């Protein structure tokens, strides 16, 4: 048969027409053996995904890591609820935004409640932010860590940093000796704490004025700003700076595991929120409200509770973090001494006790406006 231009064009048109119908049908048919995970780095490593793929031969398991909580939420808002099955974010978003907007749905309680019993005491209670007002289970906690600021203990002692707390960054002697890690949502919280304000409650005019002053002073005295924790640790190690505003186990651990144990996350001993000045993040993994859900989603969430996988998640490439499941001795014994030192295991309990939960900032929009203006200088 000879292919004339006319038959070729007709064929092309037919193919184009068919392609609008075919993939959609195929996608629906394949959901049984497909799982898409939107997560912070760690859940997307081979150490975590390979064993799960082996358990579910033939399934397509895909995990993509985001660069910030809001970034990942944007994806769901932009219509990708049809794509993802699980989303892994810090604790305030599930209750504060995802559930009210119908972007996530409750987990099967009978299946997951038993896992809380083996968790560290803070989580075994069980952990309140994992539940909706009507007591539905909306996410499973795993990785967590105190997140306040980081110092080079060769230059600033841990005791001094803990005693001075956030006021360290207001000391005129610290001008040009610190950096600001631009995790902007965190900085709002930490700048409020620096000004003795409670970020989780609405501020009055005097509060906003204080915040403005603090933001201007912190940015004014900073030697560098970056959202890259490696760049920030590098500057801290080579002595360009002695501390950085906003950081914790999550950012300090890679340097610590490399032997630079003088890089340390510090939690202030006191502060304005019920006497506490530190903040802790806790990740929750939730079920995305996908109209065409994958049965593998809950299977995966259960799979990551196994001791070896807990270790793989906590010790993924990039950053190292404690996991709630370390309350179970079977899980905790998988960490060696250096690894425990990297995640500051020695002071973790004390730091947790001095920290409040990372939460939704009450005046986020207004504070963000002041903050970005101050950052612009």
């Amino acid at each position, binding site marked *: 048969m000879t292919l004339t231009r006319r038959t070729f064009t007709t064929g092309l048109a037919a193919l184009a027409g068919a392609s609008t119908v075919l993939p959609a049908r195929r996608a629906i048919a394949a959901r049984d053996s497909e799982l898409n995970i939107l997560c912070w780095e760690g859940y997307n490593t081979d150490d975590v995904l390979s064993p799960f793929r082996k358990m579910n031969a033939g399934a397509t398991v895909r995990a993509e890591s985001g660069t*910030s909580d*809001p*970034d990942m*939420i*944007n994806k769901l*808002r932009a219509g990708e609820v049809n794509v993802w099955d699980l989303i892994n974010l810090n604790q305030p978003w599930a209750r504060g935004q995802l559930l009210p907007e119908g972007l996530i749905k409750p987990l099967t309680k009978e299946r997951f409640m038993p896992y809380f019993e083996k968790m560290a005491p803070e989580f075994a209670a069980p952990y309140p932010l994992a539940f909706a007002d009507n007591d539905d289970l909306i996410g499973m906690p795993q990785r967590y860590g105190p997140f306040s600021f980081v110092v080079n203990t060769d230059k600033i002692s841990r005791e001094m940093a803990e005693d001075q707390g956030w006021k360290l960054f207001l000391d005129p002697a610290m001008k040009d000796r610190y*950096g600001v890690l*631009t995790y*902007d*949502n965190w900085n709002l919280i930490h700048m409020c704490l620096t000004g003795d304000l409670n970020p989780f409650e609405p501020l009055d005019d005097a509060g906003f004025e204080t915040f403005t002053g603090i933001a201007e002073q912190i940015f004014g005295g900073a*030697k*560098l*700003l*970056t*959202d*890259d924790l490696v*760049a920030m640790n*590098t*500057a801290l190690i*080579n*002595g*360009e700076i002695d501390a950085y505003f906003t950081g914790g186990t999550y950012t300090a651990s890679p340097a610590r595991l490399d032997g630079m144990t003088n890089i340390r996350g510090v939690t202030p001993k006191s502060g304005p929120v019920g006497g506490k000045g530190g903040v802790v993040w806790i990740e929750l993994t939730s079920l995305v409200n996908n109209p065409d859900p994958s049965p593998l989603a809950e299977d995966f969430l259960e799979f990551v509770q196994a001791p070896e996988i807990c270790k793989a998640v906590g010790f993924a490439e990039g950053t190292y973090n404690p996991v709630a499941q370390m309350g179970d001795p079977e899980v905790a014994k998988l960490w060696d001494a250096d690894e425990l030192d990297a995640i500051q295991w020695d002071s973790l309990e004390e730091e947790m006790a001095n920290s409040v939960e990372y939460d939704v900032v009450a005046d986020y*929009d207004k504070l*963000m*406006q002041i903050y*970005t*203006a101050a*950052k*612009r*200088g």
Partner: protein
Amino acid sequence: MRGRERRLGLLYSLPVSAFLALSFLAPILLVAAFSVMPPKVFSLANMPDFSAYGEFLTQGYWRSVAWSLGMALAATLILFVLCWPLAFAMAKVFRGFTLVLTIGVVMTLFVSENIRLFGWVLTLMKGGLIEGYIRHWTGVGYDGLLYNVPIIIFGLVYVYLPFMLFPLAQGISMVPDDARQAAYDLGATRWQILREIELPLASPGIVVGSLLCFVLSAGAIAESKLLGGQAVIVIADEVETAFTYGQNWPLGAALAMVLIAIVGGIAIWGIAKADLDAMIGRRR
């Protein structure tokens, strides 16, 4: 016959035109539509209120635009001065070596921009390749070269060099040697030849190279983040913050539209000036 050809031409261009409209114009129109929405909404089903543009003016965002455009202009000028002799040599002097140089410069594009910039961070930082060695040999160190505006411009110059070099070399190759030799014979000085023969005849290459560098630099973000330590906040950074941490899509869209309008205006003006037909060899 002519009319039929024109109609056929129009017909044949339809698929590509439709593709361009869908893939290029549609996203920009979507951004434009979002930019007039009220603050903090995530859908287009709202009454337009243009408040995001008001925020642009009242919240000092123009400063970030000014920084971005200013640094882009500086980088473009430096690139032009830096690349002219090299491009001239590539077009008129080097012959075989031009290929080596071309491959060398193009090779750098195979490595991600962020990795190349991080290489510079390790080179320029305190205790880095330069300061570390100087301190080791002389015992005297200095405070590192990073985290300021000049280093951001350096980063822009470094990253966008190929985008100036190649169009410029192409432009210079369009200058006929006969014209230069005739000018010499008639007693023109080197300066006169540059000003009155080479620059005007190479102008399409100059315009294209400058536009590429300016437009890319104006929207650049990595140089200010990695090398500059955000010593100044560029407009692309503000757009990113508005869309992510700010969760204010209309504001982000409005900031993007302002940048698109300014840069697009300059680009269209520049392209109208340049004789692109001559450059791609359709005339002459």
